[in-house]
């Protein structure tokens, strides 16, 4: 029973981690919040559903969610952040709230406000180890999410883009003097951030098949909680924060009461902000 809850929690948490990674990457580069980040999860979820309904295989749905949510994130950067780059940090944040409202209404227009479902995948495979049973869908989610987490970690730590990203996060002016393009780095960061949230949305619809145009509000907030727990701007912290929230959620539902789920999560959020705002793993800043 406990082992089963842990597997479920880590599966759920891995999708939260993907959301939190994107949140923290953008925050690391611009030091600003993208409140529409949760809507990219929603965009990915609906893209996945729309493509799957056309009869495409899962991998194609996944790729479509990745690309479209990533592109939408770039549109958000160009609309809400770039024109307001010299304004106070509050202006782009409010602009992203407005963009989020726009995306929710667009999604309602195309998919209606009733919950949409992912078409049946036909996967019935179950891996059973004693009382523990893991479905093919769970395995696919875990493999995709952890694959992406390892990939993004390598990308940030080992590639030229990662170096440019970290340099721009630390000190955009010096990075620009060294021949990096903060504007280009910002756009690619937004793409990656949106793409990961989109994948999280698509994967989540496979298990929790009810998707409404307003699903992104809660998912975005949960991503924010995971980011704060892990420490703002800390990539690996965001991953651990996401997994932790997933575990808290499934443990709460199994041993306490599902009705109190969000009350518990947001109370933890509040407690962290007041008593440990730097999170479990404070990001190293050279400045």
């Amino acid at each position, binding site marked *: 029973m406990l082992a089963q809850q842990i597997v479920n929690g880590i599966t759920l948490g891995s999708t939260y981690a993907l959301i939190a990674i994107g949140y923290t990457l953008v925050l690391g580069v611009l030091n600003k919040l993208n*409140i529409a980040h949760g809507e990219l999860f929603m965009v990915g979820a609906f893209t996945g559903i729309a493509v799957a309904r056309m009869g495409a295989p899962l991998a194609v749905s996944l790729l479509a969610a990745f690309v479209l949510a990533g592109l939408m994130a770039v549109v958000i950067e160009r609309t809400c952040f770039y024109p307001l780059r010299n304004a106070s940090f509050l202006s782009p944040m409010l*602009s992203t709230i407005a963009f989020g409202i726009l995306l929710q209404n667009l999604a309602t227009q195309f998919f209606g406000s009733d919950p949409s479902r992912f078409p049946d995948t036909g996967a019935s495979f179950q891996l059973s180890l004693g009382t523990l049973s893991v479905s093919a869908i769970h395995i696919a989610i875990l493999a995709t999410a952890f694959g992406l987490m390892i990939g993004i970690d390598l990308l940030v730590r080992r590639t030229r883009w990662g170096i440019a990203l970290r340099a721009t996060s630390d000190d955009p002016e010096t990075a620009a003097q060294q021949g990096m393009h903060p504007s280009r780095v910002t756009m690619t960061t937004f793409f990656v951030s949106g793409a990961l949230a989109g994948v999280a949305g698509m994967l989540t619809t496979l298990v929790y098949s009810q998707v409404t145009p307003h699903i992104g509000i809660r998912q975005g*907030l949960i991503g924010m909680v995971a980011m704060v727990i892990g420490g703002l701007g800390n990539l690996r912290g965001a991953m651990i924060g996401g997994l932790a929230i997933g575990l808290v959620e499934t443990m709460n539902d199994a041993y306490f009461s599902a009705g109190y789920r969000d009350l518990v999560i947001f109370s933890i959020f509040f407690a962290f902000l007041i008593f440990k705002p730097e999170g479990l793993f404070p990001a190293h800043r050279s400045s």
Partner: protein
Amino acid sequence: MNVYVEGVLALMGINILLALSAYAILATDRLSLGNAGFMAIGAYVSSYLSVNLGWGLLPAFALGGLTAAAVGLLVGLPVLRLQGIYFVMGTLAFGEIVRTFFQNFEPTGGAYGMRGMFGTSLGMIYACVAVFLALFLAYGMARAGLAADAVRDDDEAARSIGINVVAVRLLSFAWGALIAGVAGALFAHYALYIESGNFNFLVSANAVLFVILGGVQTVWGAVVGAIILSLLPEGFRFLADWRLTAYGFILVAVMALRPEGILTRGMLRSLRRLLARTA
């Protein structure tokens, strides 16, 4: 007046109050995304008093607002120590905690919500708008209002001339909570039925967007923003299903093109000069 027009005007008045509550906090250079929480407290407390205990509307509304203000003082103490986006997230967390609390709190109906409230009239809503607006204007001319201006413009400088920055921010936060609480009480007794979902994150976000669109530099910006954004979806009726999408699009466009909002202090000054000349 037909029912449709009355409904639009009622919600517009409540939106003006929500905008004033967001403005009260923004006026000290802090942005709260949790005012829906204060609205919920005002709504549920006043409803419990009027429905379960048989109180009259006026005392029920007053205690609803005061409870919200008291919670504002308690929550403001730790949250106002947070800076920048941490403060925003702190208020956001508070709003979500209140919402999920009432979702589970059985004495006020829990997930089933609450009904049995009635009695809010258009006159009551706009009387509250007038009273709070008058208090804002009186406050703006008083020493305390000037202190709040100083805190907004440069809190370091304000501190150096002996202004208690923490106290100014805390009182403004509680003042914003009070207005949101009264707005919630009026809303509950107008809508006849409330559930925790009525007080979600988008309500807090809209309250701030009213102020930002109208202009953060004067209290009239909050009023103008709330009026425009309340009437906009109605004006878009001809777009049928697309009206909310158009609403979102206009919000995004205004934010990108005129981030300082529609009304600025400079504009009010030239408007006043123009009126003086024509008079």
